[in-house]
């Protein structure tokens, strides 16, 4: 059981001690990571994925339930506590979707029966259906992103979930976040998107490689988040229209539903 993880601060890109010395994230919390490009968001997520022990650039240290994880805990996929949805989905694998998923299920000690469930779930997140016999290398950006979301949700079912920039994915991001942030998990979302950032409980602000400060989401922000969500859904519906070749010449603010 994982009750909390502790991030012990290291150094920023200039080699100075980062301003935030310690962050504790408890079970059930959704945490945001925000900051400009190059500010070190992905590196922070990387440190947590590897449960870094002062052995990465940042020299951060990650504790699980106040304890240092063993090397096996850090690397053996059958014991892995962290599932990560990264930006790197190159799919260098020269194999079919079905083969890839059943191989990954085997790595994680999951049943190969879940392959169909993963594909089914992925297809609820993307417009273009994915089939089991599709080659990985021909999948579109949206398809591979949806497939990885479903893979993380079902096969890499871990107590800690890290999500790196879901908004650039061309998929339904709210549905994706819902699918990933199961009950009682620790979830961290790297984001530029105000809709997602305000959905979190707290957020770490990154600056030049270091953790600059931690901001708690205010009640006003929480209710604003609901409004932003409606605007976002409206934008998505417009996007679908453009995608399907329709002409949009006017919109009514009433359509937003605010």
């Amino acid at each position, binding site marked *: 059981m994982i009750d909390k993880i502790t991030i012990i601060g290291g150094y920023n890109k200039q080699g100075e001690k980062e301003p935030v010395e310690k962050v504790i994230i408890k079970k059930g919390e959704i945490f945001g990571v925000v900051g400009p490009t190059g500010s070190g968001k992905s590196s922070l997520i*990387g440190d947590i994925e590897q449960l870094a022990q002062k052995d990465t650039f940042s020299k951060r240290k990650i504790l699980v339930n106040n304890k240092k994880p063993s090397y096996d805990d850090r690397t053996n996929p059958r014991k892995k506590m962290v599932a990560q949805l*990264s930006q790197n989905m190159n799919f*260098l694998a020269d194999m079919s979707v079905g083969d890839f998923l059943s*191989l990954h299920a085997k*790595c994680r000690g999951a049943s190969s029966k879940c392959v169909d469930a993963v594909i089914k779930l992925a297809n609820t997140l993307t417009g273009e259906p994915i089939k089991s016999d599709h080659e990985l290398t021909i999948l579109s950006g949206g398809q591979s992103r949806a497939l990885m979301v479903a893979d993380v949700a079902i096969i*890499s079912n871990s107590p800690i979930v890290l999500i790196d920039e879901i908004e650039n994915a061309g998929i339904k991001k709210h549905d994706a976040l819902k699918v990933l942030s199961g009950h009682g998990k620790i979830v961290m979302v790297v984001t530029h998107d105000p809709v997602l950032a305000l959905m979190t409980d707290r957020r770490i602000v990154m600056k030049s490689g270091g953790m600059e400060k931690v901001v708690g989401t205010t009640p006003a922000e929480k209710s604003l988040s609901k409004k932003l969500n409606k605007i976002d859904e409206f934008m998505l519906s417009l996007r679908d229209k453009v995608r399907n070749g329709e002409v949009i010449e006017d919109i009514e603010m009433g359509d937003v539903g605010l």
Partner: protein
Amino acid sequence: MKIIIVAGTPGSGKTAVLIHALRNLKERNIKSSVIKIDCLYTDDGKKFEKIGIPTKVGLSMDMCPDHYAIYNIEDMIEWADENNSEYLIVETAGLCHRCAPYTVNSLGICVIDATSGPNTPLKVGPFLSTADIAVITKGDMISQAEREIFRERILEVNPNCKVIEANGLSGQGCIELAQEIIKSKEVSLEEEQLRHSAPLAVCTLCVGETKVNKKHHRGILRRIDGFQTYEGE
């Protein structure tokens, strides 16, 4: 002398990973010497020297670099002895995937690049299947799922090896590698043997024939349909 033999495809990050591990040994006041074997050119020697480790470069030129490493090992030990080193690290060129330069009592380390695709572990042969440690590099460039599949494929080929995920840029995983190096055994060359035989190489090409046409070739030849024939007297 404790002997560590490091193999792996060109560009997989052997030197980068070793530099981090050897720097860690140095911080523990453990003396090591490095031999870097390559074919025609390398400037890796300078990189090891930069961190203050005695380094010697061996270029095999027109010889197979793995064979060259094997029959020069005695001289290498002598040289490491002169440096008062406890550990001799031999970094091989690793070209044709057919040889495994590890000896029975040395520590065999295979460095393999995760971006080379999940079928690579099945292709590289004895330098992975007979290694004690498989170091996976560049894992930060692919997704977690791909990384886990790559690791599984390595264990399919070599179920008994210890897998270390390392990063040659940040040094992640290299402390674990240094700890494994420290655990390696003392090797005496007298009865020492290779773990895997060097390849059968007994055709006319081995002795310098450059003509391509089939009629010019003698010796033991394996045909593309799988038959092996002997041409000649």
